[in-house]
């Protein structure tokens, strides 16, 4: 029974308390409140707020448009090839955002558009391109699997009634797809809205959003007041977005399990055009990153990789140390996330009704809160007693676990809910006490779901940048994404080469994790 206090304590100390600290900082007195509105009135803040909404909207619209053709083709694929294609297009989504940013920097350099009249360096379009790249799989997968669950006979019916292919699509299929399109668009919007690493690197000092402004005020200028005000605004905006998204998703009907799929494939020309575009747009940046990590002078070599073992003045430790740190932090964070996630999931599924929704809310909120807000909250809340964790390396895995726990819960709760209640009843009649049922039925079954959540949380931790960038920078807390950002933001080809090499290593670690996710049964279908 006492075990169920662990998630409560964890969320209270490392999420609720830091968020409360931000609120307190922003609202504790009229004086502070005036400061809050003051910072929002500066032209710089207003420009950042406007740009945040603008880039999120444009990124979302373009992502939906370019990903729909893939969703269509995926929906009619055979199960095996579908699984394969879904896994491949998901690679960009799981890449650490800082690696995505690095990859686009590499592309601009390779194409020679990092300066000059066509330069995309530090422009809105660089950011939008990266967001489309990153979120492509969200739309293609969510809409694709929803689409494959639609009963194709309805569209055939329309065709028999005299509609041509396009009319049948627009008038029958498209309206049916709307829930899935909305759902994936909302997620894309949220990711773009709270995007941080991509904007910091690709937008440079000129293109700022709420997230990067919080970072600038808090870290560069040590102005916690202004940062709190912006974080408060960010919290409210994200909260509203989540409310809207749950409204939109409420009508989402689950596709039936038995579906009648069209046996007719899309035209070869359509498929070929789409996959060529996809492999260039999604594969290109990754390939370029890979190539540039090996390019030394005019030829190729391993010197960028070898350089990772040496200290450069820009980093408090070697990049190799940073990779090792990241692996250790990710492992520790995953263990914490799984432990807390399991205890919370059991409570969400089996607990008393009131407690249930409290746990549900408590573990969904961190998912909706931007990493920057979480990092900033921890920065201002946990730097003084009772929780002075700033001097301990534990603060990094704990922050990562906080971000990872909702993933574990999100994959475990459906697995637990999916258990036929009669199975528990049979177990009871076979002599299992309620406690034994939880241990030998619920846990093992849910663990299969938790594995996927654990892998996700590991991948998230490896690539985590937003929250970590607010945490103290010392040799023993340097993570690979932070090291990469430092290398990327220093001019000079040599350090960039190292950054590329570091990216490739990060990408490989994450890719391995994703293979694990996709090869388990639970990860094979479903949306995000």
């Amino acid at each position, binding site marked *: 029974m006492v075990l169920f206090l662990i998630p409560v304590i964890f969320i209270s100390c490392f999420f609720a308390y830091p968020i409360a600290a931000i609120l307190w900082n922003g609202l504790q007195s009229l004086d502070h409140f005036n400061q809050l509105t003051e910072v929002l009135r500066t032209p710089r803040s207003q420009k950042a707020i406007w740009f945040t909404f603008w880039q999120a909207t444009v990124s979302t619209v373009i992502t939906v448009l370019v990903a729909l053709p893939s969703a269509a083709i995926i929906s009619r694929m055979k199960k095996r090839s579908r699984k394969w294609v879904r896994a491949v297009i998901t690679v960009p989504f799981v890449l650490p955002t800082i690696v995505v940013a690095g990859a686009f920097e590499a592309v601009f350099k390779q194409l020679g558009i990092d300066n000059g009249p066509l330069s995309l360096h530090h422009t809105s379009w660089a950011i939008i391109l990266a967001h489309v790249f990153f979120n492509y799989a969200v739309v293609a997968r969510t809409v694709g699997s929803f689409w494959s669950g639609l009963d194709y006979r309805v569209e055939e019916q329309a065709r028999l009634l005299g509609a041509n292919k396009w009319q049948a699509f627009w008038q029958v299929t498209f309206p049916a797809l709307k829930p899935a399109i909305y759902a994936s668009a909302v997620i894309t919007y949220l990711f773009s809205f709270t995007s941080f690493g991509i904007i910091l690197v690709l937008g440079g000092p000129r293109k700022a959003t709420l997230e990067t402004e919080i970072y600038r005020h808090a870290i560069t200028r040590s102005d916690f007041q202004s940062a709190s005000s912006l974080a408060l605004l960010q919290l409210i905006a994200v909260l509203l977005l989540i409310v809207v998204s749950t409204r939109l998703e409420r009508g989402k009907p689950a596709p039936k399990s038995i579906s009648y799929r069209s046996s007719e494939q899309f035209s070869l020309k359509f498929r070929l055009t789409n996959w060529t575009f996809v492999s260039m747009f999604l594969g290109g940046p990754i390939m370029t990153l890979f190539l540039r990590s090996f390019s030394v002078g005019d030829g190729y070599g391993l010197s960028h990789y070898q350089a990772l073992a040496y200290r450069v003045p820009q980093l408090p430790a070697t990049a190799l140390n940073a990779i090792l740190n990241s692996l250790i932090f990710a492992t520790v964070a995953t263990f914490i996330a799984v432990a807390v996630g399991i205890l919370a999931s059991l409570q969400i599924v089996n607990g008393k009704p009131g407690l249930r929704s409290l746990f549900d809310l408590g573990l969904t909120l961190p998912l909706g809160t931007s990493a920057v807000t979480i990092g900033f909250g921890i920065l201002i809340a946990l730097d003084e007693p009772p929780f002075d964790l700033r001097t301990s390396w534990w603060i990094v895995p704990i922050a990562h676990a906080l971000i990872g726990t909702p993933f574990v819960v999100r994959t475990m709760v459906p697995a637990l809910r999916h258990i*036929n209640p009669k199975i528990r*009843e*049979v177990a009871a*009649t076979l*002599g299992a006490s309620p406690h*034994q049922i939880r241990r030998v039925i619920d846990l093992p079954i849910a663990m299969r779901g938790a594995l996927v959540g654990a892998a996700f949380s590991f991948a998230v931790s490896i690539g985590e940048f937003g929250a970590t960038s607010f945490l103290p920078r010392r040799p023993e807390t340097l993570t690979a994404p932070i090291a990469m950002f430092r290398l990327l933001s220093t001019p000079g080809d040599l350090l960039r080469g190292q950054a590329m090499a570091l990216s490739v290593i990060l990408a490989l670690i994450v890719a391995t994790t994703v293979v694990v996710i996709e090869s388990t049964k639970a990860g094979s279908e479903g949306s995000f």
Partner: protein
Amino acid sequence: MWRLEQLAVQFDGKPAIENFSAQFDKNQITVILGPSGSGKSTLLRVIAGLQKPDSGQFFIDDLDATELPSHQRDIGLMFQDHTLFPHRNVSQNVEFGLRLKKIQRQERRRIVDEMLELVGLEGFNARDVSSLSGGEAQRVALARALAPRPSLLLLDEPLGALDRPLRDRLTHELPKVLRTTKTSAIHVTHDHDEAFAIADKLIVMDSAKALRIGSPMDVYNDPRSETVAKFLGLSNFVKIGDQRKVIAPQAASVDPNGNVPAVVTDVRLSTGLQETFFATNLGPLKFRLNESLSVGTSTILRIDLDQAATITSS
């Protein structure tokens, strides 16, 4: 011996079981027959301890067990479908109850093999449960329920999800297995053929109440009410004087000296038996005859109306 006394269960104010009393004897198979929604599954859940009754008591050998938790009742349960533990193979499913009884590994293995042999699944030990057919899965579920030798086994439409031929075969095998293992059982079904094939004792249930309790023969020959008669597949209801009676489908023969003139209106096959439909002055009747008559034939039937059971209309 298990006994229910004055049992009542309500769901949202609607009665699922009303004023139900019955006794279940050792080494007997009691079948509860009734349409879906009649409360029969709820009854099993109360006996298993999965549903708390609103009032009434449940006794095991005269000890009040109403409050005893499921896992201490020594009562097994088998559902219609999809209740195998998905994360365990066939052996691990079957031995589940044995492990909880802390039976040694070797003994467990022996019992698992014995049970699998009993249900006709020798060598299935290491099979993944997701690879089983519907019939195989139900056999494993039966083996799993029987393995810990529960003193009473509850079967909730265990054959309901199977297709007809398999169902007929298992309807035949199930009572054999139960009798071989000397298992007392309560079997719930809505199928009267299945009920008659299995039951030592029959309880007909409808709208939360027990309408008729007795041996299958007694109940069939004297259903007492029209509702019960209909569940048993009887349809020849006639009015003689001021009495309503039900005539069994095999209670007539063609006889020129008979008592009921009749015209054949239809001939149909029902589960391999020929049913002949007649228009008579008693109303439309349906019989299973030895001879074949063609539609339109006029004939005279001999029906022993005194033997027909008297029923109350309900």
